[in-house]
């Protein structure tokens, strides 16, 4: 289902759309308060953007530097060209351990690679330990938001879900009790699973360490209790120096949820005695994106989700309408890089209002890239023929004033060609909106009478 159809379905429930919009707007407001408490906020964003700029131009060198330092620390480094290779690497580590069960803390990369279904097919049971991810996992859904995976679920609905899966009392919707039930259920998994996967927020080239940010401490629980820690990351997550964390950690959570910092910012530098630590670097289209000059900066993304929370379209269409692991504005500029045909609708799921670019902590010009993707998609034939024909007709009329005037005469041209003004029930404009009323004369006609000699 394309974005427009999914969004229409989402909007059928008016009150729920209101609730979804207001919930995320509240997060945007929390972000605003946190940002406005930092006078140097805009300078921080600029610094972060510049650091990432340097990372993208020196990516190969930083990756090699990281690998060298990580290996020195006793971490095993793997390289995956695409999602499939990533999944195979993870499975091979599990097999070498003879393990068929594991815990995983939040990682959008593993979502992007569809690791869970792959492992399930290969007989491995994965338990997501981030509360939000656990909820969507129990519900058999993908996350709808990169930071708040179950933001589309109401607490009463979670109560029903937990009653079914975790045996909480029927009708219980108390967040504290529900969280407690989830925690108890997860504790057993933490204690018994021998392998833990985590994502990576930042990998420091200079030291070969990586940093994982969570609010629930579930990454730490998983990694510290397991014999094997596998960290999966996209190659763009590298930063040059440890001191740069001072910039990114200040920006990340303020942008994401309005907190000054995540509850846990855990540094993993070397395996403890007897533990194995692996890191899997994944390309999966990133070097292609790096080669597309106008879209390169999308790789600066630190996955804070701020662009989603502020996006008026995301708030009113929900994460699943983007049919991609990463939803919202950033998803709409990342997804076409992975598959133009499947994701040709996403760059059009925007009014180009530009709010996303303004909240982005690394200053990605998201809305300009949406515009650029439209051009690329259209030129490469990913546009319906009818649209192309009507655009060609429009171009012919608009570049010829005589034809334009002829077809003018109170709006005939505009009526026939502007997408928003055909007065019949088939036109989507008219479904829920009135038409402007055509006046007696156009401005051009008035001007001719009143001003021209």
């Amino acid at each position, binding site marked *: 289902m394309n*974005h427009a159809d999914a969004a229409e379905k989402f909007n059928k429930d008016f009150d729920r759309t209101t609730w979804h919009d207001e919930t995320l707007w509240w997060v945007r407001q929390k972000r605003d308060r946190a940002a406005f408490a930092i006078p140097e906020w805009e300078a921080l964003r600029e610094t972060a953007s510049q650091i990432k700029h340097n990372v993208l131009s020196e990516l190969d060198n930083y990756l090699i530097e990281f690998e060298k330092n990580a290996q020195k620390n006793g971490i095993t480094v793997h390289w995956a060209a695409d999602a499939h290779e990533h999944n195979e690497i993870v499975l091979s580590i599990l097999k070498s351990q003879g393990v068929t069960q594991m815990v995983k803390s939040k990682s959008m990369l593993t979502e992007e690679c569809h690791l869970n279904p792959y492992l399930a097919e290969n007989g491995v049971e994965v338990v997501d330990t981030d509360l939000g991810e656990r909820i969507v996992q129990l519900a058999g859904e993908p996350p709808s938001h990169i930071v708040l995976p179950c933001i589309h679920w109401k607490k009463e609905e979670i109560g029903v879900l937990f009653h079914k899966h975790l045996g909480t009392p029927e009708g219980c919707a108390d967040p504290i009790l529900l969280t407690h039930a989830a925690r108890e259920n997860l504790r057993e998994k933490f204690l018994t699973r021998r392998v833990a996967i985590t994502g990576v927020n930042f990998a420091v080239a200079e030291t070969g360490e990586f940093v994982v940010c969570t609010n629930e401490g579930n990454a730490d629980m998983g990694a510290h209790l397991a014999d094997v820690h596998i960290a999966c990351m996209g190659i763009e997550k590298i930063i040059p120096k440890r001191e740069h964390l001072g910039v990114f950690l200040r920006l990340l959570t303020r942008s994401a949820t309005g907190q000054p910092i995540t509850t846990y910012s855990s540094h993993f530098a070397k395996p403890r005695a007897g533990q194995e630590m692996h890191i899997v670097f994944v390309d999966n289209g990133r070097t292609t994106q790096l080669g597309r000059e106008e879209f390169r900066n999308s790789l600066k993304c630190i996955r804070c989700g701020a662009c989603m929370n502020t996006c008026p*379209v995301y708030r009113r269409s929900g994460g699943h309408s983007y049919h991609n692991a990463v939803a919202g504005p950033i998803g709409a500029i990342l997804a076409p890089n992975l598959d133009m045909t499947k994701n040709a609708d996403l760059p059009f799921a925007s*009014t180009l209002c530009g*709010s996303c670019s303004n909240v982005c902590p690394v200053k990605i010009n998201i809305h300009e890239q949406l515009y650029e993707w439209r051009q690329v998609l259209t030129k490469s034939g990913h546009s319906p023929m009818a649209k192309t024909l009507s655009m060609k007709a429009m*171009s012919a009329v608009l570049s010829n004033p005589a034809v334009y005037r002829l077809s003018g005469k109170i709006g005939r041209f505009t009526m026939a060609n502007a997408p928003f003004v055909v007065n019949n029930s088939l036109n989507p404009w008219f*479904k829920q909106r009135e038409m402007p009323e055509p006046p007696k004369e156009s401005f051009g006609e008035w001007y001719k009478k009143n001003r021209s000699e």
Partner: protein
Amino acid sequence: MKVGLFIPCYVDQFYPQVGIATLQLLEKFGCEVSYPAKQTCCGQPMANSGYEHLTHDCNRLFISNFSEYDYIVSPSGSCVLHIKDHLHDDKREVEATHVRTHIYELTEFLTDILKVENLEAHFPHRVGVHQSCHGQRGLHVAQMSELVAPPFSKPEKLLNMVTGLELVKLDRLDECCGFGGTFCVAEEAVSVRMGIDRVDDHVKNGTQILTGGDMSCLMHLEGVIRRRQLPIKVMHIAEILNSK
């Protein structure tokens, strides 16, 4: 000062009074204004749909219509932004550059070029401003709520010069109305929902007259208001600044 008046196609066809108010305002401040009769459109409907490559002829026409003026002024932030960002012509790049760098949205022209500090306008109503995204985030006629930076608003500064007028404070200062060009039909459900939410913010805060610098957004909001039979009237800011 020779000013070329650029009236976007839908304003020409549906809102002649907005063109007239813009013209009269500019004349009031001593501009020598002409409306080149051969103008059609800025090309944005095609470009935003992914067909910028079909806008060459449109660009050529725009340049020949407007390159001789000191300034080009339009009552539509969105069209102005499109020209500023995308008007090029291999053969006439010097003229194209002149047009790109001398085209202004009406309120920024009044504020930055004419440096208007006084208006003889009277409008005794509660007015709510819809701050269109392209004017704001594109042309910076007002500060953006996302940025940690001092607030300002050129349209509101002008409206504050109008006697009797009371500005309405909204819950969401600058959220998009959902028009978005072809978005308004391609993503009808979300577009309308965004429009409803914008309008409700105005209703809730007591707007009598909803105004703005971009007639396309206003046309969309007016469509929603009229269908829902709400007690709000929509007027372009030029009409208010030109009222007596």
